């Protein structure tokens, strides 16, 4: 698949790992920065399911437990995350439970959390941007409605 420019309408579902790479010093930080700058500047509308916040909190916890960041470090990162203009689908867990379960059964090797992001992207009719090649590679061969929905930042999407 050729790298794409911004999707029509400039709206995406955003995987939490892209936000994590923007908020912390990570291997993909330089790739996450132009994506998140566009979101911060209002040039790209980003959507997430409600479980995004639980995932982000868990990433913060593990940055402290595994990487030795201080409580103040992760607190500041979390505060910054709350300032990002990322629109939440607050009823995603309830709304997409059946759809996510269908996707869990259909897609080998894809985590159940990822299936909620995917269900949201399918419902809104917009792409899901991630760093997770395994996720994209698991979805791509299924084709149909799922074809081209999951795009890898830095490969399918280059800003």
């Amino acid at each position: 698949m050729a790298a794409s420019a911004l999707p029509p309408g400039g709206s995406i579902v955003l995987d939490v790992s892209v936000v994590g790479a923007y908020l912390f010093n990570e291997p993909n930080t330089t790739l996450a920065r132009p994506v998140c700058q566009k979101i911060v500047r209002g040039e790209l509308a980003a959507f997430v399911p409600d479980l995004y916040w639980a995932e982000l909190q868990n990433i913060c916890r593990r940055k402290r437990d595994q990487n030795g960041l201080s409580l103040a470090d992760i607190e500041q990162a979390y505060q910054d995350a709350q300032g990002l203009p990322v629109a939440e689908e607050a009823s995603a867990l309830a709304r997409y439970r059946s759809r996510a379960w269908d996707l869990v059964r259909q897609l080998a090797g894809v985590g159940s959390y990822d299936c909620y992001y995917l269900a949201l992207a399918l419902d809104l009719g917009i792409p899901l941007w991630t760093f997770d090649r395994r996720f994209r590679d698991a979805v791509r061969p299924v084709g149909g409605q799922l074809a081209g929905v999951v795009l890898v930042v830095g490969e399918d999407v280059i800003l």
Partner: protein
Amino acid sequence: MPIVSPRDDELLGLPVEKPIMVDSNAETNALAILEIERWCREHGLVRARENWLRTVLQGEVRVRRGVCYRPGPGTDEYRELEQAIEGRVANMPPTTDSMELRRGD
């Protein structure tokens, strides 16, 4: 058409940065934001940075309300957040990829 107000003629002569309410009857918060974002782009406006839209009754219909405005040349209110995040990250030691941390659970 999910956007239920304003009418296009209400936008005529709308001053720069003057807020205007845009209502959507879309079923969910995310769908309403998506529709309002698209409507704004078609009309040369931007949506205020609200992640959760207020719901209001318009007659007997419950709608989700976004605040939009025509951007001015100096509309860069988020530069401060951008600089704060990037300055903080520049002084942070390298950490594990968030994608790997997610998979580890």
